[in-house]
């Protein structure tokens, strides 16, 4: 697997993603936001950070970077794209994923290890069994996912809800108690085809047992397996 990690002005997690991929034995390279050539890349990651200072709305300006036209084309051809945190916000602004991410309900920047529950989904970036519980750090101010009622129904029916915030034992949170206020406790969603995936937590930070956990490996390894299967 050859991963392209897009660097916008203000991205600050691109090195972590490249480190994570290389640590797991995959090739990874940086893609500058002004670049328009994604050839040779198997999958694209939009990393976390504060692209363009989060001015106007998180991800609103990054969405119009030259590289994003290519990312949209790549995604439309079925190419795998994962947006982490600010990357998720960029994917919603680019309309590659539905809904939007608002300010956290408590108005607090949240930063902690967060229990997540794997939902049965069509997502290509995660082939773990449903109800697997993992612990992955969250680190954001605007992770409060919202969408309209029709979209939520489509997400539920289409297996597009990939991850939910949950209790440490995997049970559902009391209604309305997601750490950022996210609708239906949504931590990550994918598009109908499952190739475009956005999530607020940071899997790249938990791939090395020296750094507090390895639950984040599954995302990179699932994608690598799918790419190998597709090539054979």
């Amino acid at each position: 697997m050859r991963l392209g990690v897009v660097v916008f002005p203000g991205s600050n997690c691109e090195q972590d993603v490249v480190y994570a991929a290389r640590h797991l034995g995959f090739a990874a390279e940086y893609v500058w936001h002004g670049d328009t050539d994604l050839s040779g890349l198997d999958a694209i990651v939009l990393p976390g950070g504060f692209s363009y200072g989060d001015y106007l709305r998180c991800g609103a300006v990054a969405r119009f970077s030259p590289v994003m036209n290519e990312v949209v084309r790549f995604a439309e051809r079925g190419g795998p794209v994962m947006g982490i945190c600010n990357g998720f916000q960029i994917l919603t602004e680019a309309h590659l994923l539905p809904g939007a991410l608002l300010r956290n309900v408590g108005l607090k920047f949240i930063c902690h290890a967060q229990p997540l529950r794997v939902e049965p989904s069509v997502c290509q970036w995660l082939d773990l069994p449903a109800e697997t519980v993992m612990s992955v750090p969250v680190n954001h101010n605007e992770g409060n996912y919202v969408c309209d009622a029709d979209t939520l129904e489509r997400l539920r029916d289409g297996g597009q809800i990939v991850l939910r915030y949950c209790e440490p034992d995997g049970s559902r949170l009391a209604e309305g108690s997601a750490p950022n206020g996210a609708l239906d406790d949504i931590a990550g969603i994918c598009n109908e085809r499952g190739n475009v995936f956005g999530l607020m937590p940071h899997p790249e930070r938990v791939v090395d047992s020296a750094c507090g956990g390895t639950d984040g490996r599954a995302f990179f390894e699932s994608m690598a397996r799918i790419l190998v299967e597709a090539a054979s």
Partner: protein
Amino acid sequence: MARYEILVTYKKGIFDPPGATAQRALVNLGYAEVADVKIGKYIQLELEGPDATLERVTEMCDKLLANPVIEDYRIEQVGEA
């Protein structure tokens, strides 16, 4: 030169955490009559040349200045600057 003012607010039904916090703070200050507060954005544009049209400003709002998924906007032309 034409000057436009744009007000961007959350759509009905979208919870506005800063607005809700300000509402609670006002009630705590003794303004019990405050039932709701919505906080939005104010944007001022100055346009020059033959393309300085309302149509173009609307396009700018739809494309960048507002997110139609969560926000409504109102444009006012406030005269020649």
